């Protein structure tokens, strides 16, 4: 018995000893879909969708590079034909070739002074980009061409309840705006000529979660309103949608939304005249309108008990205005992506990785 057990064991392999890199050659337009994965599992993945052929390739990072993408993929952006992926809990930013999906460069937390958990990347030029962070009270500056760390910007924010987070970034002129989500109610303004935080906007609602800039220079900000758990609350737990003039920094409108349990995300159409908003369902709003419509533009699917699908991420194709919505399902299985036309007609749907949260368009 022992001998047979030994032979059996000797004949078997326990682990996946890496996979041979696969050759890809993605030409034409395509959509990268970042799937966040589960925190501390290292199972974040990247998918690639061809809108023309409606074919999807899942797990392309690992297949192209023979290595894992990492833990908790937070955001993806394409700049100068290179896809940059911020892997939050891995502490790395990948630069990927958008045709072969091979790694062209990387910036790790260990190579910088202050980066801990990178969240979003904003490109000022081919040689300068900012990185926000969940924990660090600094914004990291790096050169996207060389993937070298070049400096950092103190956010000058006192750590609030143990957090000092910065999230998404948008630019208007020489100003970059970034929202402080965790336990904060601030929008920071960075002077890009001096790389310093030069101003801030204080909101009445807590935890600004997502931002978008329209064609008129109006900054749209949505908060999640804090939380309410049992008898403990922080903020009023009601998401608010703000419209802020990016030049004067004046708050022009503040609209509370009618939900207290929603993931909220913003996106703009290609000419930045229409705002899309995930708030359980997807809403569509002209940027000149005074209020978010009562009826959703795209309703989330519901099961027979009326439970909605968990819409988690949204992206709009800058080439044709197609809307891509990620559905987390139960957050522990392959998520779904729904592709709609700009008019809201479902064009396609497909499975990707766990918790699709970000889209980048080639």
């Amino acid at each position, binding site marked *: 018995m022992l001998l047979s057990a030994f032979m059996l064991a000797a004949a078997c392999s326990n682990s996946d000893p890496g996979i041979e890199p696969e050759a890809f050659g993605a030409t034409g337009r395509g959509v990268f879909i970042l799937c966040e994965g589960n925190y501390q599992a290292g199972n974040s993945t990247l998918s690639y969708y061809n809108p023309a052929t409606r074919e999807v390739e899942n*797990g392309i990072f690992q297949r192209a590079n023979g290595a894992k993408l990492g833990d908790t993929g937070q955001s993806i952006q394409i700049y100068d034909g290179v896809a940059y992926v911020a892997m939050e809990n891995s502490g790395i930013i990948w630069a990927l070739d958008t045709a072969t999906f091979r790694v062209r460069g990387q910036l790790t937390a260990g190579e910088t002074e202050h980066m801990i958990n990178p969240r979003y990347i904003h490109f000022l030029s081919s040689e300068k980009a900012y990185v926000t962070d969940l*924990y660090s009270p600094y914004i990291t500056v790096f050169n996207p061409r060389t993937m070298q760390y070049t400096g950092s910007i103190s956010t000058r924010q006192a750590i609030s309840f143990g*957090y000092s987070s910065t999230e998404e970034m948008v630019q208007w002129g020489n100003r970059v705006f970034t929202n402080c989500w965790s336990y904060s109610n601030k929008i920071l303004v960075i002077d890009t000529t001096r790389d310093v935080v030069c101003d801030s906007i204080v909101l009445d609602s807590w935890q600004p979660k997502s931002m978008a800039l329209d064609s008129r220079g109006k900054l749209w900000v949505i908060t999640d309103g804090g939380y309410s758990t049992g008898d403990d609350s922080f903020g009023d737990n009601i998401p608010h949608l703000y419209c802020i003039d990016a030049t004067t920094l004046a708050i022009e409108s503040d609209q509370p939304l009618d939900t207290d349990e929603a993931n909220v995300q913003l996106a703009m159409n290609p000419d930045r005249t229409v705002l899309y908003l995930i708030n359980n369902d997807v809403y569509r709003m002209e940027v000149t309108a005074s209020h978010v419509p009562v009826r959703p533009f795209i309703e989330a699917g519901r099961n027979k008990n009326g439970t909605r699908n968990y819409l988690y991420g949204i992206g709009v194709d800058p080439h044709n205005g197609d809307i891509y919505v990620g559905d987390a399902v139960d957050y522990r299985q392959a998520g779904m992506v729904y592709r709609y036309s700009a008019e809201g007609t479902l064009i396609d749907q497909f499975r990707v990785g766990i918790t699709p949260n970000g889209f980048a368009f080639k």
Partner: protein
Amino acid sequence: MDLDEVQVTGQRRLRDTGVQRTVLDSLVLHQNVALSMSDILTQHSTLFIKSYGRATESTAEFRGTSPSHTQVLWNGMKINSPMLGTVDFSTIPAYFVDQANLLHGASSLTLTGGGLGGAVDMHTLPLFDQGHSLQYIQGAGSFRTFDQFLRYTYGNEHWSSSTRLVYSTSKNDFKYTNYDKLGHPTERNKSGYFDDVHAMQDVYYRDGKGNRIGLMGWYTHSLRGLPFLSVDYKNNTDFKNEHRHDAARAVVSWDRTLDQWNVGVRGGYLWQDNRYDYFTTRETVSTDITHARSRSQQGYVQANADWMPRANWLVTADLALYYNHVRSTDKSPFHIGDNYNLGRMEYNLSLSAKYRPVKNLSLSAILREECYRHDFVPVIPALFAEYVIHRPWNLVVKASVARNYRYPSMDDLYYKPGGNPNLRPERGITYDGGLECRIEKKRYSLSANLSAFDSYITDWILWTPNAKGYWQPSNLKKVHNYGTEMTATAMVRMKHHWKLTLTGNYAFTPSINKSERLADNDASYGKQLVYVPRHSTNLSGRLSWKTWTLTYQWTHYSERFTTTSNDVSYITGRLRPYFMNDISLEKTFQWRKCHASLKGCVNNLLGSEYVTVLSRPMAGRNFEIFLEIKPQWHKHKKK
């Protein structure tokens, strides 16, 4: 090593009617001072141990249930964390347990409620009439691992005292090929160090008139680094990520045995303090990533009485009261101040009657009532039966049916954010059947147990993320567990002092999600639960000749899925089957003044590269040697 083997008695006890039990004796538990209970359960039971590595969190699952469905008792007192409902078996040195009973499925109701999967019942045992004994073991192994064990015991006719100390420390920075990173570099396990101290004292007194008093105390201090993921690119020198754990447990007991009565009273106290810290101090700026504290205290009293009016009747009653208090704090962005600071009472009452109407047939009925806060769970009934088919082989057929309930843990109810005070207890119904035999001859012995079970759990408490980004528990899940468990042990004594012992355990445990679909695209219905293997097997062989002993251990888990939909289209969707081989060789020396032994162990003999949890690399082939010294004194002789 000179180990005391606990002999299995041939007498069938009415108390054990229909019970599916696996007994781990000191021969198994005390085979290696470096092993924790999680290692022992992995190698010698059908339980599935989900482990993040040596000296990291390890939980035990019976029959494809969850770790919180395993109730754990130490000298009669439940030691499941009142916060989480689970036990980290990596913090229990196997050398501190003299006997462990694994009660499968419904059989756990003979001890406690809430064990929807089963119960692990651990005991220290007195050593009356043994005189003085001193034992010291020094272990030294790979990755700068050092294990020290010291035990002093004294036992006379009335008193037994045992003092044990374990100190284990390791840098645990093993090298591994990191297949998760570009170019598959060779890296070291980062932040995997540990520094654990355990001290245990137990004292027993018996008066020879049926009274026995016991006092058991156990203190643990543990400092453990929390290893970085294989996909972490931070410098471990910039970050500190560690868990400090302190625990003190004490139980005092009084048992009285009379002709027809056994009565007992117990009291206990459990204190646990956990501190998790993950922070960086780069450039003199300190940033906390995790800063969590929890302190729990548990008081416990229990009284039990057994009445045996006739040889074929046994009636038992048991009442246990627990008071748990937990103070939990962390830096979550979702609450201010304490996470929660609350206490709750728990009451357990059990009545049972066991009856042997004819020589070969035994029946047993249990009624159990439990209450937590001010909420009573429904009465838990359980029925057991067994029939002796062939007495020379001790061939017995067993069957049982039982309801069971597990009430929510305090985190389930009160954790912020997400805790749900409206949770209902989880409900289970289990059907068990099986065969058991034991044959003992002069030259050989054979024992085997085969059981099949069918179990349905509804209102399974499941934490799922909500739209706000935090996790919330709800009574979401229905799970169908079924399958078989087999254990077999064979021992052969051969000529010229050869002795061979072979032990095997196998479990087939489909654990199928039958919950209503969360959404119309939920593909998890009808799929195996995450991280639960369908097959688990272990085999061990022990060959001894005179003063030499060779031990071989083989462990296998089938593939485990990492997603609820069991999707294997991408590589992180499953963990490949797990095979592990360990071997040890021991030589004992017996001099007049001293006994000694030298033992060498090779763990992961084939140098397998593997993970048991995604992105958590495990150590390759590693070595440890142990030197044991036992001075020999004049033994106390019974008059």
